[in-house]
């Protein structure tokens, strides 16, 4: 009897989610290497004979999409962009291995190279007396020694996964390896398995603001339609109740 109302309510919940997702994508549209999310409405299979109910959207699935963003020039010798579907290996302060696409290195007070507070895996630091660290296309980090010669001081390592969607986001563009990532292949840029990185470049997010705005507008309309269905269902129930005045 009230399946009309449940259907309308499920529509409201789903379109609210669509708006939330579009909003989150738009808020992060300018965050380098941010990977957009999407929400997909799906049905729920109920075997024949178990009583078909018409309760609206069966379930919704949120996917994170890992297609690459555009690479733009970024005049920083410690910034680089990944050219394939690989990730940079970093370690969090508590020792957990994490992966990220953000190739933007900074140097902390002790000369340790970091990406947004996480150290490279294996760690790379600029020894005393050396300066001007740079990243090369093969991931080798080098610095100038007192004789002004460029010497290597470390190597950036990369990883490729069997199933990128099994990565678990921990925020700010970092991911831990969830169950189901499949085989993890490790290597260095340009070693044959991994493409060389693009130096002095930064990968932008993969959000297309136009698509997100369109999605938001459509979701708004659909949300109003769901409220209309809700009101119609409610009015019909009220009319039925009024029969016995």
């Amino acid at each position: 009897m009230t399946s009309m109302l449940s259907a309308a309510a499920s529509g409201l919940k789903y379109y609210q989610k669509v708006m939330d997702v579009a909003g989150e994508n738009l808020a992060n549209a300018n965050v380098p290497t941010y990977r957009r999310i999407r929400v997909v409405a799906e049905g729920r299979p109920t075997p024949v004979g178990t009583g078909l109910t018409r309760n609206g959207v069966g379930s919704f699935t949120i996917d994170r999409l890992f297609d690459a963003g555009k690479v733009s020039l970024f005049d920083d010798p410690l910034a680089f962009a990944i050219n394939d579907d690989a990730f940079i290996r970093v370690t969090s302060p508590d020792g957990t291995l994490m992966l990220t696409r953000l190739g933007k290195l900074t140097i902390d007070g002790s000369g340790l190279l970091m990406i947004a507070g996480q150290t490279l895996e294996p760690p790379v630091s600029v020894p005393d007396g050396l300066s001007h660290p740079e990243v090369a296309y093969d991931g080798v980090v080098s610095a100038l020694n007192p004789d002004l010669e460029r010497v290597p001081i470390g190597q950036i390592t990369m990883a490729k996964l069997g199933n990128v969607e099994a990565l678990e986001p921990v925020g700010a563009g970092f991911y831990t390896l969830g169950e189901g990532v499949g085989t993890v292949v490790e290597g260095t840029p340009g070693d044959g398995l991994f493409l060389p990185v693009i130096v002095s470049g930064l990968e932008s997010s993969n959000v297309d603001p136009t698509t997100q705005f369109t999605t938001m507008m459509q979701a708004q309309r659909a949300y109003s339609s769901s409220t209309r269905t809700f009101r119609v269902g409610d009015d019909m129930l009220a009319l039925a109740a009024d029969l016995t005045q």
Partner: protein
Amino acid sequence: MIKGLYSAYSAMKVAWQFQEAIANNVANTDTIGFKRELALLGSYENVLLSESTPSPAPLNSRIQQIVGQIGTGTFVAEVVSDFTDGAIEETKRDLDLALEDGFFVIEDDEGERFYTRDGRFGRAVDGTLATSQGLFVLDENDQRITLPGGVLTIDESGLIVGADGAEVATLNILDFARTDLLRAGEAYFQSDAQGTPVFGGLVQGALESSNAELIDELTTLMAVFRTFQANQTILAKLDESLQTATESLGDV
């Protein structure tokens, strides 16, 4: 008792059942692979009306003559699924699949089979091709498919090729006569029939949208609502008349 009462009542009942299907359609205008429902209305048989007239002399009796018919209302004969294709929209995700003909074959943990156009698939924890709710997609030998890692290419006949070029499996895509499909969820169907294999029309990196159009469904929603409202008014007025008849006419 009063035929009008039952006609109005049956119209209201039809409207109610119809609205349940429409409200569901409206909620599912964005559900992947959703097939909307249509109500087929039937009418109850017409009943013959007769009146009696005096028979010609010398018989002292009356003759029943049929003078016409009256309808006794409508009912929802059947709610059927409309299998018109939804629009295929590109998503650029390698495990989003859409079909132009036929259905994917999926099974749950207990081996219960379903057919669907909802092609948003992914990898289960052990690497098998599965839906977002954990049902497994079957290949042409009705086996679950274990996927290798990396980006996969799926051609239009359903052949899955791994990142290294090795063939993995071919998806089972079956088509059915529309009358053989029973609804088993918003985008899922079951059938007792075998289904004929389909060898083309799969699009990788795309999903099929719902075939319920918001405008059409909302229009029908409002039209059915007004029908319900109108019949409710008739019912209420008839009720009043009955009340008057029982209360006032009986006064002597």
